[in-house]
């Protein structure tokens, strides 16, 4: 499980450096994300740009992470590849996530806010 984090102001970009987010990886993904959240992150962007394939276990893991983060903090997902975007749309879960076309959108916003 390879999660790379970069901080810009209050925003933490977490890049999932894996080509697949599937049942074999979903538990480790949840654990890795929980560590980052529990370390005090309050505004998290999950960059899925490298993930070319995600199954419903992977989707469930992303939902679980969002619930763990809670409504008081900010959680966005970014850079969905076509196959990953399709899973969100077919399950209609795209309606409950804040989705950015690129993590840069959040970075620009964070850098502006900090001046």
């Amino acid at each position: 499980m390879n999660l790379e984090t970069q901080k810009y102001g209050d925003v933490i970009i977490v890049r999932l450096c894996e080509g697949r987010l599937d049942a074999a990886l979903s538990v480790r993904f949840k654990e890795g994300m929980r560590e980052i959240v529990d370390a005090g992150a309050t505004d998290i962007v999950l960059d899925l740009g490298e993930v070319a394939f995600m199954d419903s276990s992977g989707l469930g893991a992303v939902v679980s992470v969002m619930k763990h983060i809670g409504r008081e903090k900010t959680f966005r997902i970014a850079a969905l590849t076509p196959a990953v975007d399709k899973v969100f749309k077919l399950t209609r879960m795209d309606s409950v996530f804040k989705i950015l076309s690129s993590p840069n959108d959040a970075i620009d916003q964070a850098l502006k806010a900090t001046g």
Partner: protein
Amino acid sequence: MQYSTQIKSRQPAVTSVVADVEGQLCASGVNPEQTGEVCLVLAEALNNVVEHAYRYSEDGDIEVDLSLINQNLTINISDFGPEFSVPEPRPVSDPSTKAFEDLPEGGFGWRLIQMLTDEVSVRRENNRNHLQLKKHLHGNTP
């Protein structure tokens, strides 16, 4: 295109079957969109076997057979788990009407399979389940 393999009911084995099939479909000229759909269907069906037929016990046998003839894709998956039936297709409910804490983390597998295939059937024979999934591919496949 013809692909057959036998695996044990372990999630990493599912990952590698899906990766193999992805490579074969791609090499057969199936476009990325349909390749992705077939891989998703295959992953969901195999995850069901690992999770429900064998309940995560890792020594269950699974046979996978996939063929693509004249743009007709057929996937056959067999296991020795308990008998099951395919749930009735039903529309995906709108998750935005649910409370945040109640957002679903699972239960999408069969619906994804049903949305992305043309035919789903299961028969029980000699203590085995035989799941068959059919999907007509279109476009630039051979």
